[in-house]
């Protein structure tokens, strides 16, 4: 799923400095699961903003709505009637949300409340880790399910760099070296010699570096 972090309050407050009637839109999809954009977080953000404004003695009316997802036009359609009554709209969905809204309602101003970060999963209650970089050509089967593209800082394809020490990446002690894990796993499985074959340079064209991407289901799109 898509994992995001909420923006600091100061940044959000700056976005709405001169606006007194706003709408906060939550999304019941990934951001609810990673606890940044669900109904609860919408309420918390609304209360925090009201506190900030009340401190400066300036009133702020905040409406709240959470739709099923902000990445499908029909759901975006649901707020059509009232969307323009606000001075601004804060979307707590991932990066897709504010863009879909802006496309649907050009005259309204949309602000993102979260920083969308990566595709990943929950390793424990309240902790999410990156697992996939969306490079477009999945190769994890060569590395026993441990993806060097997403989980190696340099996305190396042929063995660890010189900086890997005691199983951790040179950039920080919290980041485990994925190659260390790959080699250890291969040794356990007794398939170490798989790594002998040289992996050619990766064709990044299918990744973000190849420009914005699109995927079409021929059987559906008419």
């Amino acid at each position, binding site marked *: 799923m898509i994992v995001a972090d909420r923006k600091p309050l100061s940044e959000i407050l700056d976005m709405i400095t001169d606006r007194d009637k706003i709408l906060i839109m939550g999304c*019941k*999809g990934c951001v*609810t*699961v990673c*606890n940044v954009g*669900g*109904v*609860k*977080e919408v*309420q918390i953000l609304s209360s925090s903003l009201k506190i900030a404004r009340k401190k400066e003695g300036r009133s702020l009316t905040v409406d709240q709505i*959470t739709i099923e997802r902000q990445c499908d036009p029909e759901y975006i359609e649901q707020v059509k009637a009232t969307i323009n009554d606000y001075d601004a709209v804060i979307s707590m969905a991932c990066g897709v949300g504010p863009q879909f809204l802006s496309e649907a309602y050009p005259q309204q101003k949309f602000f993102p409340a979260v920083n969308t970060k990566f595709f990943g999963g*929950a390793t424990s*209650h309240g902790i999410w880790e990156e697992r996939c970089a969306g490079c477009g050509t999945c190769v994890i089967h060569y590395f026993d399910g441990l993806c060097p593209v997403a989980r190696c800082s340099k996305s190396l394809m042929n063995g660890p760099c010189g900086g890997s020490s005691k199983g951790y990446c040179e950039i920080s002690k919290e980041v485990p070296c994925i190659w260390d894990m790959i080699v250890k796993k291969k040794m356990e499985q007794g398939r170490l010699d798989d790594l002998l074959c040289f992996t050619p340079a990766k064709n990044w064209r299918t990744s973000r570096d190849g420009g914005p991407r699109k995927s079409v289901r021929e059987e559906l799109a008419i």
Partner: protein
Amino acid sequence: MSTKGTNNKVGSVMVVGAGVAGIQASLDMANAGYYVHLVDSSSSVGGLMAQLDKTFPTNDCAMCVISPFLVEVGRHLNINIIPNSELESLEGEAGAFTAKLKNNPRYIDSVKCTACGQCRQVCPVTAVNEFDCRLDLRKATFIKFPQAVPLSYTIDKNVCIGCGMCEKACLAGAISYSDQARFSEIKVGAVVLAMGNELFDPSLFDTYAYSRHPNVVTSLEFERILSASGPYKGHLMRPYDREVPQKIAWLQCIGSRDINHADHSYCSSVCCMYSIKQSMIAKEHAETPLDAAIFYMDMRTHGKEFERYRERAEKGSGVRFIRSRVHTVEPLDDGGLKLKYIPESGEVLEEVFDMVVLAAGFATSKDTKALAQRLGINLNAHSYAQTSDLTPVSTSREGVFVCGTFQSPKDIPQSVMEASAAAAGATQNLSEQRWSLTLTKELPAEKNFSEEEPKIGVFVCNCGINIGGVADVPAVREYAKTLPNVIHAEDNLFTCSQDTQENIKKIILEKGINRVVVASCSPRTHEPLFQETIREIGLNPYLFEMANIRDQNTWVHMKTPQRATDKAKDLVRMAVAKAALLESLPQVTLDVTQAVLVVGGGVAGLEAALGVARQGFVAFLVERSNELGGMALGLNATWQGEPVLPYVMQLIEDAKKNERIKIFLETEVGHVTGTIGNFTTTLKSANNPLDTKVINHGAAILATGGKEYKPHEYFYGKNPKILTHFDLDAAVRNNDKALKDSKIAVFIQCVGSRTEERAYCSRVCCIHSIKSALILKKLNPEMQIFIIYRDIRTYGLREDLYKEARQQGIRFIRYNKDNPPVIDSDNGQELKLTVKDHILQRPIEMNPDLVVLAAAILPNENKTLFEHFKVPANSDGFLVEAHAKLRPVDFASEGLFLAGIAHYPKSIDESIAQAKAAVSRAMRIVSKNTIAVDSVIASVNPDRCAACLTCVRTCPYNVPRVGEEGYAIIEPSDCHGCGCCVSECPGKAITLKHFTDDQINAKTDALFYIEASC
């Protein structure tokens, strides 16, 4: 079995003595379909435990633990509490007794009295306060303790001068001087005696100066000194000059194990533990560092977790343990006390202490002996109720049962176990009369107010002067009238009194009130009472909210009455705001399968299965091995010498004969699902797992037993002369010649117990060794017998064995953990044993022909079984009970119970008692066909749920699960209602009924006069 016709049996039981044992027995029987008459000679239930500050080994506050039980027994529809009364006589036979009672006058009507305390304030007469053990005074009109049940004052006629002041002060008009002693007669089916014991009075000893110096106190007095409700409000001070003591000495065995002064040769079995507890608690209380010393003969910490408790005291809190019998306590003039004693090293020492606590033991009171005499109950030599080990709770008179310290000195868990066992025993032959005499409250159908606007009634209480004396109650009442949705507001003197309740009901019906707010005391104590009242006129109990304007307002802001009044208004406004949003919650009930699964075919399992069958319900008895009987098959006799084998054979035969018991040998428990009242378990046969059988049952009793530890120490198994207890019992059974011919026999204690690896005491090995030694002595009087021990723990009446052993010339040598006895057999045959004698302080050598190792008792290996039932086992592998003190037979998860050695090593009579107790606890569930579940539970709104698993991960009881339905499911009967998942659910999909977000926010909004917004 009485031969009388079964028709004239009576479905009620009389319990004499309302201490913790009497209360437990009453609750068990009342909840299993019998009407209970609970008689006590004092003015309130609670007994000795109510006087305690903390209880070992958990250091829980005694009152916090017992007061819910007091409230439950006080409010129970089927328990009739008869205070201030004595049982005069008991005629008739088991099943149909006639009990004559003498009800002494209280001079205060306990229905009218609300314990507001005005009469105590004005009474001019003071008298010694027995509850605080004469440390302070009470008035002629008094209440035993603030949480007393019945919650009402009493007048002590022999000190009262009859001046009439209390009648003038009583606002509730509860005083009735014309009260007379009355006699009443009650028909009951059985009687349970639980009169308990009193503490030994040490003024007998002049050497301890107890009656001459206030700083020499008994253990119960010290308990009152430590107690927050005691004379010094919990601050540790000594009575003489209120100084905080820096050095306190505890003297053990005062009035126990003592034949010349006290003529009590038995051990009171709890004093060692409570002295350790008091020393640790005293250290916590003292403002300055406290040096605590315990003078003892044998440190008897033989219960579960007791050994570790002692280690913690010695190593953690630095309590000094001095093995010595103090000779004299000499008072000095500055309040100090000089102790003269001889430690093990032999020189005479003197040490000055600030305070001395005499660990006084138990003794049967005069009245108890007289009552036993009147009822024809045989007492043993120590004037405790005579019982056989194999029927531990039955007295000499049929239909009369005994439990608690009147049977023999014991601690609270053992008393509570015996209470439940006595409950099972008493009701066993009355099962045809179950539910015959019990009352059930007919309640009108609940009215549906969902369409109606909220119409709130506010009832403000004065509580005598407790609220009215500080806050301006009429002003609060007038203010309440101005609040939104309030259609009626009134104030009254005592909202909780019987008559006020009646007219509240009238007003609610007249005005069509559909939400009730009571502004008075704490919901913790009075919410159930008011909820029941409004339920009686068709209002759902959850359409009710309380504002605590006494304990959390007038009582804590006495000096600022105006602010207390303003705060009362705020609290009422907040309560009314929440009341407007309250909805009625349905009462969730589940139906019950009236059968019990018993796991384990030892004595405990057999007794449990037979108990359930005799109560009239089906029992499934599952045994892993191919034979019933368990460990008991290897035992010759109980500590009182009763043969075990015939008893076990009879048990097995009864079980096989009884058609309500379904026996499954060589069968194991496969998979367990379901909750209290509705378990489904698959049984699979041990030798071929495919052969499975599914059974349904309402409760389960785990009696998986234990086994003897096979020692690696002391050459066991390498030399035929070295046996364990079970080997010796077997040898005695087939009267092995070698026993008779051996000249020197040696018993070595604590083999495998009380070590780093197994830091617990196996409780029964001392008794078993001494009993076997006596048998060997009888076999061959010339044999020299030695018992090499660390602490002799012949607790309770078992001390007689130790006394007799010494008389028979059996010699006892003490060793400590660091230098145990050493055995070596250089030539394979001849054994050589060397041990350092504790008196000579020099090693002795001997060549024993027979060495018996008192091996530890281990729990049977059942890891998978325990996981199936999701029940915890402690680090030693023994099952962990719900509460060490007051629920020693239940598991934390409802509907599951435990018994026997699987709980902790214990003697056969204790196992039998615990098994019967488990039956009685199971009857609470299985004797009914439906069971009610709490209504304050969490529920999921499917279309808001994003199936994000937060609730699954966060629930402390892992109740929620996300199934193929695609959203979270919370099983109503499993949810405990804590609300953790509700506050963490990112989609706000879960609501906790009666504590929803809106209801909580309504309270904060109301405080700041914000109208109920979105």
